């Protein structure tokens, strides 16, 4: 089963990463979206997403890296159904 890992705190991605498979997904929301603006947050995961509303709110949408696909709330809901389950790694 493939999981969507929802990360809302930038410090939590590295903690969850050992458990994330390459076919799982990572969705950055809330404060964690800043990771999508940084070159250093590259992962082995093929499905990397960041919540567009949270990037816009923080004024950093234009700084997001191409390796993170921007998704809005409707796509967020769809992603939770595309993957077999969602794991919010608090």
């Amino acid at each position, binding site marked *: 089963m493939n999981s969507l890992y*929802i990360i809302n705190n930038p410090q939590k991605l590295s903690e969850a990463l050992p458990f994330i498979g390459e076919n799982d997904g990572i969705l950055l929301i809330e404060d964690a979206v800043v990771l999508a603006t940084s070159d250093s947050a590259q992962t082995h995961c093929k499905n990397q997403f960041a919540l567009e*509303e949270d990037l816009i709110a923080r004024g950093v949408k234009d700084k997001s890296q191409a390796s993170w696909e921007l998704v809005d709330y409707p796509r*967020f*809901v769809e992603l*939770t*159904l595309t993957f077999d389950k969602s794991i919010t790694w608090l």
Partner: protein
Amino acid sequence: MATFSLLVTANPYSSQGQFSAIEFARTLLEQGHNLLRVFFYADGVLVASRLHAPPADEINLTKSWAKLAIEKDIELIACVTAANKRGIVNASEAERNALTGDNLDPAFEISGLGQLTEAMLESDRVITFG
């Protein structure tokens, strides 16, 4: 069409999680999915108080949840153990604990953790906002 439940543990006015959860709930309902239950746990239960008084130009999260619950017939349930220890009580809990008043917003119910487990068994997806 899928059936969702949400687990909300975010402190309402200290962090963004409750705002995210409300937006997610609205969006999934707009898409025609079902929202069986929103279960509030840990600091998330604080939103169930009807006594929040945010500044007039800021969102009242309790009222936002209540509006959703009333318009879309959604169950809003706060865990009794988490709520009581944080000062969120309904009339019967107030009486049982000999408290001077109650503060549960009428759109919310107080119930046990079994309601979270049941939501897991009965929903296609449970999404946590913390």
